[in-house]
């Protein structure tokens, strides 16, 4: 069992996942980073690992980011998970849909590593606990 902050990266591009992995390994070396290439794989990963923060793209093959977030928010066990959406998509619909949800933040792609880490830290600070378990 591993007691650290766990970050789940959901992104279909190997390069963007690598970029995110790199900045979080540098900024939060204590964090455990797990990865998925689309929403369904991410949900499966969450049965093994209780992610403290999810960083998700929107456009992905398989289950896309919008469907993943909707699934998350409709699940009583997962609905309070923090999500940082990192996308080049138009997100006006999501801003409206989740305007009162303090557990979701949005960043444009590309964003600087400083902005991404700052947004991630702000979301983690809203959590009641920063420890999770990975098996």
């Amino acid at each position: 069992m591993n007691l650290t902050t766990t970050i789940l990266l959901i992104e279909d591009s190997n390069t963007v996942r690598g970029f995110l992995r790199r900045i979080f390994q540098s900024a939060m070396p204590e964090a455990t980073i797990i990865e998925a290439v689309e929403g369904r794989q991410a949900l499966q990963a969450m049965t093994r690992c209780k992610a403290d923060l999810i960083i998700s793209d929107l456009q992905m093959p398989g289950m896309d980011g919008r469907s993943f977030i909707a699934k998350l928010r409709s699940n009583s066990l997962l609905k309070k998970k923090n999500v940082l959406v990192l996308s080049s998509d138009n997100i006006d619909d999501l801003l409206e849909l989740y305007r009162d949800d303090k557990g979701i933040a949005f960043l444009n792609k590309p964003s600087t590593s400083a902005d991404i880490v700052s947004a991630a830290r702000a979301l983690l600070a809203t959590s009641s606990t920063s420890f999770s378990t990975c098996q």
Partner: protein
Amino acid sequence: MIMPPLVKAYFDPQPGFRVPSSFELAEVLDRILGQWAYLSAVPSGKPSAGPVPFALEFSVRLCGPVNGCLNLRASRAFAEDLAFAATGDLNAAGDAEDAFQELCNLLASQLIRDFFGGTHETFERFLPMPSTPGIWPVENPNSECLALIEKHPLEIRLWIELAARERA
């Protein structure tokens, strides 16, 4: 409670539609490369008149308030360097095409935000696709530039039809 930050770009007033200049194309590219891969792009004029063979070429079709096509061409060596620069992974060369495709995606998205109405207008979702000069529009590009990234040349061509908005 700390409020998560929101991105200013989604709320700032956007400029009207216009075609970016050659210099502006290079400037947007430079900004993206700086944020994402810690690289910089130097504008170096326009691409050569005839299509020079490049190993990698992707095009993005823009459909929405403006219609158009964005085309990027570069060498595989550039894309391999890009993949390494973005990830810091010495074994990232295998993701060269993925890195180049993502660069096209980011550039198209940023151009929409900066020049074509931002997110206040609806564009169809797009996916950069491999292309060849044979499928380029027959007209000359509305804007084009040659940028040097480290030692690598990268060509950008942009065809834009602003008519949909202007005719209305």
